[in-house]
């Protein structure tokens, strides 16, 4: 693995080659491996090792970036020159700030670094192809036992991320991750489960396979029921994939660009009063780097309190622009929160460590089902896209385990639905929530979310299976 010490030496060389006022180097990479299975066999099995550096130079209000995965002197000189060439022909941008110093970073330090749990686990990094094959064999064993066909992945990775700038700021992060995703296929039905953690010890391939198999078996011979508004119980992965579409809008730059659904809505009761959301890098179920694209510390940011959007996140420059804009005073507290992307970029910033508030009276999914006279249990959603950016209407499909609930009981599988549902409406219609879990889906990044029981969820069409 690339070490902080070696990266520091490389940065010293980059600094020597740069002719601009300021220079920043962002290091990335690691080792990763993924075993993929389908039709009860391993059909793809890959491993990769790759490290790179991305250099940003800045001078006189001009900045640009160039990246390479070659760390020899010639490549470093080339990448510095490329960055400078891209920057020097630009018109100066008065909004471009000097790179942050360690003092600026530390003065904005709203979070004790020691409160962030370790996210590197040697056991996860040490997983071998044979270990993954053994895990897959267990999953295939469950499929065979139930006369099902299985497909999925078992992956592990160790990664590094580091930043150095010419004003003395530097930071480094290493972490591991492991993931198992299992689909079980029957003749006319399917089930799915997925789990992701920095610590492979938190993953249980057998348990995931058994749940996915049970869903496939129980949803067999799905019947078609009419589209319309239903009470739905969204399992955590379905919640995650829906709500993930709104967090681009919780960004100061998105407000300034007038493309956020939060424009003119911050401070208003937008969601139900049982909805609370924070961005919290230190949450024990969270993951990821504790610094942003400029090296600023990610702070704990309360985004939604009792259904009211309280504030959004900021990169340094966005915060300064917001203070001078017509929106200042209308968007809650303004200041750098450590959520900026690598500069230069179009989108500014985004919260990426989402944690929903623990409900006062959490309910299990079983309890939600038993309290539902007629509704639909949704395991997973698929191919979600935004239909309307301001009303936040999303469309997508249910997938891999959609059940009818009748009189408090699951009543077999149903054909999958297309939905067209406003996120604002959805989060205003949450009847109950489950305990928080680290959920993993396909449309959004991992989050800490509960299962939700939502009233009047808008299914508009039914597909053929």
């Amino acid at each position: 693995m690339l070490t902080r010490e070696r990266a520091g030496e490389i940065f010293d060389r980059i600094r020597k080659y740069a002719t601009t006022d300021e220079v920043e180097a962002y290091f990335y990479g690691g080792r990763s491996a993924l075993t993929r299975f389908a039709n009860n066999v391993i059909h793809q099995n890959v491993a990769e090792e790759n490290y790179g550096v991305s250099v940003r130079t800045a001078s006189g209000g001009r900045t640009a970036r160039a990246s390479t995965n070659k760390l020899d002197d010639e490549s470093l000189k080339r990448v510095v020159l490329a960055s400078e060439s891209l920057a020097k022909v630009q018109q100066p941008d008065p909004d471009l700030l000097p790179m942050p110093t360690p003092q600026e970073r530390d003065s904005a330090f709203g979070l004790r670094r020691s409160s962030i749990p370790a996210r590197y686990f040697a056991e996860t990094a040490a997983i071998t192809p044979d270990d993954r094959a053994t895990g897959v064999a267990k999953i295939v064993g469950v499929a065979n036992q139930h006369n099902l066909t299985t497909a999925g992945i078992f992956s592990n990775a160790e990664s590094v991320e580091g930043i150095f700038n010419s004003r003395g700021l530097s930071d480094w992060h290493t972490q591991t991750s492991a993931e198992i995703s299992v689909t079980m296929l029957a003749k006319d039905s399917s089930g799915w489960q997925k789990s992701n953690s920095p610590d492979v010890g938190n993953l249980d391939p057998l348990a995931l396979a058994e749940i996915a198999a049970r869903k496939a078996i129980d949803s067999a011979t799905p019947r078609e029921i009419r589209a319309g508004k239903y009470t739905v119980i969204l399992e955590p992965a379905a919640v995650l994939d829906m709500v993930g579409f709104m967090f681009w809008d919780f960004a100061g730059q998105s407000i300034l660009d007038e493309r956020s659904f939060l424009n003119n809505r911050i401070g208003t009761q937008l969601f139900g009063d049982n909805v609370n959301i924070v961005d919290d890098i230190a949450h024990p179920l969270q993951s990821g780097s504790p610094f942003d694209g400029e090296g600023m510390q990610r702070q704990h940011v309360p985004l939604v309190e009792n259904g009211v959007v309280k504030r959004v996140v900021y990169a340094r420059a966005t915060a300064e622009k917001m203070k001078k804009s017509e929106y200042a005073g209308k968007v809650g507290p303004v200041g750098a929160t450590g959520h900026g992307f690598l500069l230069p970029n179009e989108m500014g910033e985004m919260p990426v460590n989402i944690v929903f508030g623990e409900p006062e009276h959490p309910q299990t999914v079983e309890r939600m089902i038993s309290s539902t006279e007629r509704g639909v249990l949704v395991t997973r959603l698929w191919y979600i896209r935004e239909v309307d950016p301001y009303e936040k209407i999303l469309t997508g499909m249910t997938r891999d385990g959609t059940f009818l609930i009748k009189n408090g009981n699951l009543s077999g599988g149903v054909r999958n639905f297309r939905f067209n549902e406003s996120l604002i409406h959805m989060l205003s219609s949450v009847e109950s929530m489950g305990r928080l879990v680290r959920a993993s889906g396909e449309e959004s990044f991992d989050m800490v979310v509960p299962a939700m029981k939502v009233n009047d969820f808008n299914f508009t069409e039914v597909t053929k299976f």
Partner: protein
Amino acid sequence: MKQILGWALNAAAQPGVSYVDARIVDNRSRSLATKNGKVSHASDAESLGIGMRVLADGAWGFAASDDLSRAAIESAAARALAIAKASAQVKQQNVQLAPEKAVTAQWATPFQIDPFTISIEQNLDLLLKIDAEMRAVPGVTLAETSMNFHREEQWFASSEGASIHQTKYSTGAGYAAYAFAGTEIMKRSYPNSFGGQWQNKGYELIGELRLVENARRVAEEAVALHKAEQCPEGILTIILDSSQLGLQIHESVGHPIELDRVLGMEANFAGTSFLTLEKLRKLRYGSELVNVVADARQEHGPGLGTFGFDDEGVPAQCTPIITNGLFTGYLSSRETAHTIGEQRSGGTLRAEGWNRLPMIRMTNISIRPGEKPLTLEQLIGDTDDGVYMETNKSWSIDDKRYNFQFGCEIGWEIKKGKRTRMLKNPSYSGITTEFWNSMDAICSSDAWTLWGTPNCGKGQPQQVMGTGHGAAPARFRNIRVGSAYKGN
């Protein structure tokens, strides 16, 4: 590079190994963007490395490394071999590869102007000029432009003796104007949404796109949408512009014909396909007017799916996918060809880069234009009552590729052969085969454009690839319109 490939092939030639291939890929890209009169993004990126596939004990292993030293290559080969042997622990049958003649060849994208030779200043000036045109229109609240260049040089060698050197260029550019007012955010894009138009061409594409000339009109339309009527809901006749039809082909023809999906290999992520094997040469996919090919050859045009050889050394081919409405072909690879009774791969295995395993990907999946001369205006003139929809805004389809829903940026009411009032938020939905069977007219070759989709995601780890889609405006009868807003 040949020497490095030789190290890889030799290092992997161990007992139990029946096949090895290796690809060294050198990628270079440039990305420029502006927002509201300022440069919002300027970056260059390069990536060089090697990826190798090893077939040992009848199962696959793949390893990739950014280090091209002999020691690192030998280490990666050993890793690929160990991975293949682990794969063999959970197998049922040995992988079979369809035979392919090993060739020594070179191929390069034909282009007139190397985009990396154009000064950054010239590119930024052009983008800022477009930006100024858009922001000159009152009501425009956000203007974004972008321009991207990509160069990929690849050296491929296999244990069967293949040695292929390919260099591909692609260029893309586009822009969007946004107008926020009241409770609506309206958007118009040009030449297409989500990154504009992309082709395997040099800088000459930028001149062909007439970017500046269209900027003011596009911005005016974004503002005018606020005053437009909501697109009606119901069962209607629709005409789709060629870019929207290109995406419709991508989602409801291109993905379902991927043989790996059909065989269940993508079941956990991208999904499977309704096009099960017994449907080949039996299913009426569309009306008699629907003729679709998968064509990776240069003679098809400069699509993002154009190449000389795929990433396992199979030459570019043209496969008839839908012939006069009948389903006639899949996208296949050397590993999957035998499942449809073919003796040879259709040549569609491609990887995002050196660090990704090649997999079945769309090449250029294109609908043939109509044979009789027919312009868009003539098609509208031939339509009594309907909606003309332009430029994709949202897209979604189920994991077997039956039920889809698309939204477009702008619609136009058609009454008695005339394009009348502007409509906002047009959308349509349906079932794939019912939709294609409802096509009763398609414009001729003058209205046909080879669109590039640069952002097609598939695989685990996910790979993002470019695909090509030739299309002309076409008319569809009895289509469900407007359900995206139903109930909201």
